[in-house]
């Protein structure tokens, strides 16, 4: 993993909506290249407002946001969006063409001026929706629509990928598929930012940071283990720990080990017992 270089820097960012509501109150955040960051927080804590600053859709009322050393106030949304791809919550807010293929081509056309059918195909294949490419984006399932929206951003290969509530309304299988897609992107060194309430999903994601927003401020910025074992912190965002940390906390073992997922818990238990007791599970 490359790393160290800061790709997004938010310095004391305040944002007040035209109707007078102050959504961000002095956010400081530095995102490094190759980071996989989760942004969590209760409804109205400013998550979506914050990510809209990362491609210039919103400009800070006070403070500044730097994306790849460019101040967002001095750059157009189109220029910033070339670097920062945001996949918004509702895929229906963006579909307007009659085929999945054309839909995916849209951003590619805008940013590169040409369409590479090969590239579109390979992205669709990667997301497992190649068979849908001639279908209308309106007549496929929500999980598929989500993947089309993701494809339409992935296809132009932005350096930074932001997903806003990517799991809302997805079934278990679709979530697991999304998880493996994100894992692959992370391994390729892409910077990922995921805004989500889905704590189980986040616990299974290979995150290296969790940022908790509350009332327009960053109240926590640290490792997923610290975040997901901090009951009071999660409670302040109206969340509860994922089930494995919850189990470990209930058993009073959190000082002994801090697994986030079943696999981690299993590995630990196996190493503890030396493999003999649980050996049967492997076959």
């Amino acid at each position, binding site marked *: 993993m490359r790393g160290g270089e800061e790709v997004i820097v938010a310095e004391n960012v305040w944002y007040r909506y035209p109707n007078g509501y102050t959504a961000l109150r002095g956010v400081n955040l530095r995102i490094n290249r190759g980071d996989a960051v989760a942004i969590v927080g209760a409804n109205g804590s400013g998550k979506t407002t914050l990510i*809209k600053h990362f*491609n210039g*859709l919103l400009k800070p009322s006070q403070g500044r946001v730097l994306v790849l050393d460019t101040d967002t106030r001095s750059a*157009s*949304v*189109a220029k910033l*969006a*070339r670097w920062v*791809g*945001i996949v*918004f919550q*509702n895929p*229906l*807010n*963006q*579909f*307007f063409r009659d085929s999945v293929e054309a839909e995916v081509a*849209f*951003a590619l056309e*805008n*940013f590169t001026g040409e369409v590479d059918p090969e590239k579109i195909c390979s992205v669709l294949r990667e997301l497992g929706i190649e068979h849908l490419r001639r279908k209308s984006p*309106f007549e496929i399932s929500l999980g598929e629509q989500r993947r089309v929206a993701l494809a*339409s*951003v992935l296809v*132009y290969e932005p350096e930074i990928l932001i997903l806003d509530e990517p799991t809302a309304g997805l079934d278990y299988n679709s979530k697991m598929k999304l998880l493996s897609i994100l894992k692959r992107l992370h391994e390729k060194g892409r910077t990922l930012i995921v805004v989500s309430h889905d704590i189980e999903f986040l616990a299974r994601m290979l995150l290296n940071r969790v940022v908790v927003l509350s009332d327009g401020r960053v109240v926590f910025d640290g490792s997923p283990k610290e975040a997901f074992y901090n009951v009071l912190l999660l409670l302040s965002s109206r969340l509860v720990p994922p089930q494995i940390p919850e189990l470990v906390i209930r058993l009073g073992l959190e000082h002994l080990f801090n697994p986030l997922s079943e696999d981690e818990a299993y590995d630990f238990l196996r190493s503890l017992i030396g493999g003999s007791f649980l050996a049967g599970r492997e076959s």
Partner: protein
Amino acid sequence: MLVEKVSQALLYEGGDSVLHRLDPRVKLLYAVLTALAVFCTEKPGALTAMLVVQLLVAYASSLLGRVASLVRGLVPFLLTIMALNTVLIYVVSPGIEYLELVRVFYAMVMRVLVVLVVFTVFISTTSPHELMQGLVEMGLSYTAAYPLVVAFRFIPIVFAEVQNVYDAQRARGLEFERGNVLERLRKLVPIIVPSVVCSLLRAKDLAEAMEARGFGAFPRRTFYRQMRIKALDVAFLAMIALVEVLCVTLVIF
């Protein structure tokens, strides 16, 4: 966005003016009759007098600010219509006098303004629910009148949706700042299509949810608050009718 400003100017705002206290049926009658009256005359003086009367009514319900911002928003629209009309008039009757053209345009602008003011006053001082109840009391069925309330309530939601669509497309590299008029018009497609689709889906969901909760199960429904024509209503209607008839008939130039 301009559209947003215009829509905000058209939303109901609670208040306690005379107009707020009138029966919605009386206000509707006032708006419709006035709109018809301005089409009964072409005399510039009479039309000006009519506009002054409506502005006084707007002033009485402290809506002049709203009217002003609405007019400002409609200037480009009016100018476009005028330009198109000029072309059309010269095609139909090439020998038209300059003064006649001015008269025609003046009448047109005055009529648009009068209609605009009366309906702004009507909509701003009548809550969607009152309007719906008024229509039901006038004989319209409840199932036909209720969508009106829904339409009003959904205006802010639809605008929020359009904003989301706009953001989503800009995030995919759509640039409105570039290109000539034709290209910019074509760029509206990625905004309009998702907005319409989302609205239709929402309408369908809403209809199903309402049916599931028994909307329209009984043909007649009653209202908790009864509507009655009061002395104030009669006085207002009589006064407005008198003044407007005088305007249309007596002003001779």
